[in-house]
């Protein structure tokens, strides 16, 4: 901690010992000027698209991608900054989305009776229900549903965190358990189709894809970005990063690693739920796939491609990968899937820091005057250190017997 010197002290007279001066670490400014200007330009470009753009399809994609990017940001917070690899983040996204979609659908059904005159969602009628189930009546109140969409996933994440992180279950165990969690949710959605729409999902509840909602999504993205920046930039953020890099040491320093993990997991679940809620309102169709393991892992990939451990990375990753998918999958058909698979391998083997991270490496090289190899080596080392804690209880001892 003593090494961290803020701007003011940095302007103090030069140290006598050059080696010591070199070790000084200056914390980056909260919002660099270039980021502020760039951010304003990007936000303005996206926000004003309804005025200069004529392509309604691109407009619908923009809102969608922003939600995906927010989802990826939530994964980045836990994976990129804290080192928890969750393969079930879509659980929180899905629950948020289903709450909002159900509420909108119920309200829509009140104004648009089904063919047989029932004033409740049509998929419930197809499945033999004769009226809105009583436990769903509170969802008629949309603000309450939105509140549920945000609070329920957060509480679920809290429960999950208390169960697992308190007992030092993380790394690959956490990944497997979260994966199973999202597979079960997906099965449950399909099984209880009278209440969730099953395979068909929830459709036809009116589209809310207006410029106003686009601006709202944009605003939410910006707010979450700033919150994430504040979080990762604070003392808490430093602890989180230290947990990522070496949790055993962080614990020795006296930090309650489990509580920090639970906290960031809840924040991330809240963010994913918000993304899901906005997504449901924007696209007007929601299905079991939006809560499934495949979507979760897709989010991990966007984060990895964009650059984990950077806040802009998830946005870049989601826009690049998803954008390429929407514009190329038509032309390339199933070959696109192979490209996606290859991208996973490429990101792991070659471009370990993702797009933003790699550009950052170039900039660091340019600023520091170090060779690119040195910068890459440093990042390799970081990636390696991060991996040592993949089993509960730290790295396996070298002489662990095989049984």
């Amino acid at each position, binding site marked *: 901690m003593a090494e961290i010197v803020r701007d003011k002290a940095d302007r103090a007279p030069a140290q006598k010992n050059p080696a010591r001066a070199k070790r000084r670490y200056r914390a980056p400014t909260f919002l660099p000027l270039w980021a502020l200007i760039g951010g304003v330009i990007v936000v303005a470009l996206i926000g004003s698209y309804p005025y200069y753009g004529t392509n309604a399809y691109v407009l619908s994609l923009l809102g969608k991608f922003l939600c995906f990017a927010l989802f990826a940001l939530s994964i980045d917070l836990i994976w990129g900054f804290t080192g928890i690899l969750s393969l079930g983040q879509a659980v929180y996204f899905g629950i948020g989305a289903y709450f909002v979609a159900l509420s909108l659908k119920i309200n829509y059904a009140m104004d648009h009776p089904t063919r047989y005159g029932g004033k409740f969602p049509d998929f419930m009628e197809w499945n033999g229900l004769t009226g809105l189930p009583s436990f769903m009546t509170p969802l008629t109140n949309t603000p309450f549903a939105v509140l549920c969409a945000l609070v329920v996933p957060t509480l679920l994440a809290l429960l999950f965190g208390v169960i697992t992180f308190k*007992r030092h279950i993380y790394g690959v165990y956490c*990944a497997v358990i979260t994966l199973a969690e999202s597979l079960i949710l997906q*099965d449950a959605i399909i099984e209880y189709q009278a209440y969730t729409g099953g395979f068909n999902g929830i459709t036809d509840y009116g589209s809310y894809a207006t410029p106003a909602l686009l601006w709202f999504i944009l605003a939410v993205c910006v707010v979450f970005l700033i919150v994430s920046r504040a979080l990762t930039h604070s003392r808490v953020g430093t602890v989180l990063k230290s947990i990522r890099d070496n949790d055993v040491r962080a614990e020795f320093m006296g930090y309650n690693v489990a509580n920090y993990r639970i906290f960031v997991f809840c924040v991330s679940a809240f963010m994913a739920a918000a993304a899901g809620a906005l997504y449901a309102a924007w696209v007007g169709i929601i299905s079991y796939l939006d809560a499934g393991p495949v979507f979760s892992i897709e989010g991990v990939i966007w984060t990895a491609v964009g650059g984990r451990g950077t806040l802009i990375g998830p946005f870049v990753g989601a826009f690049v990968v998803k954008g390429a998918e929407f514009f190329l999958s038509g032309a390339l058909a199933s070959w696109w899937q192979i490209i996606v698979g290859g991208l996973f391998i490429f990101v*792991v083997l070659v471009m370990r820091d993702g797009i933003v991270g790699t550009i950052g490496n170039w900039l660091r090289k340019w600023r520091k005057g170090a060779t690119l190899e040195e910068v890459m080596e440093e990042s390799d080392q970081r990636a390696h250190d991060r991996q040592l804690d993949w089993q509960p209880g730290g790295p396996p001892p070298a*002489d*662990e017997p*095989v049984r």
Partner: protein
Amino acid sequence: MLQSIITQFLSGFSVVAILVIAAIGLAIIFGVAGVINMAHGELIMVGAYTAAVVGKLGGNTFAAIPVAFVVVGLLGLVIERGIIRWIYDRPLETLLATWGVGIIIQVLIKLIFGPELYYVGAPKILEGGFRVIGRLPFPYYRAFLIVMAVLLLLLVFYVIFKSDFGLKVRAVRRNRAIAGCLGIDTARVDMTIFAFGCGLAGIAGAVLAPIKSVSTTMGFPYAVDSYMVLVLGGVGSLWGVLTGGALIGEAETILSFVFNNVIGRLLVFLFIVIIIRVVPRGIFGYYERR
């Protein structure tokens, strides 16, 4: 009620056998080679397609088993040489890379075989079945699965604990540097053990093909189940595979019978999480003294 639960318990044996068969390849890859292989389901799927091709050519399951072992083993060799060997020191990232491999395998199989389902018949000798305690019909093929699970466990036990190769594997796992100094080609051992694990996944696919329609997406649930078995039983332990498989298989069969499929799975999941909470490294996991 009690009697039907007992019959469910007996029929659960075949579910246990399926879990053990599916998980044993992963036990090698994940437990011994240390690779988090998300393409495990796809390897099983390739094994099942191999069985389908062998079936088209006139062979039966018995012929398909060695063919699937070789085909999927070679596939595993290619994956190890091409990708895995660069990332042994970063286990969590093997997860991402092998997920990519899984996608590629899935799409390639779809391009070759088309999207339709394939059905593989059981061998002639294993058609039909017998009855246990009067009511429960028990197909011969299910009995064959139980035998197969035991045989595979014995095979792995022999390879790891009784053969020369197993000695090398254990030496490398215990202390890589010293094993290398003693003249063991560690890279070769890594490669072979990974390919062996993949081959076992291939056998699993060939054996499981007759009880399930063969499609490109058939593997993923098996992969998740296998991981749950390993996480519950303890990574890197054969007893763990057996115990994990037995607990999950029986619990799932009985709970699914009492409630329904989804609630059964949910309860099994909670049960696993609770056990993991008590023993974070699985029931037979290795615990260092603290």
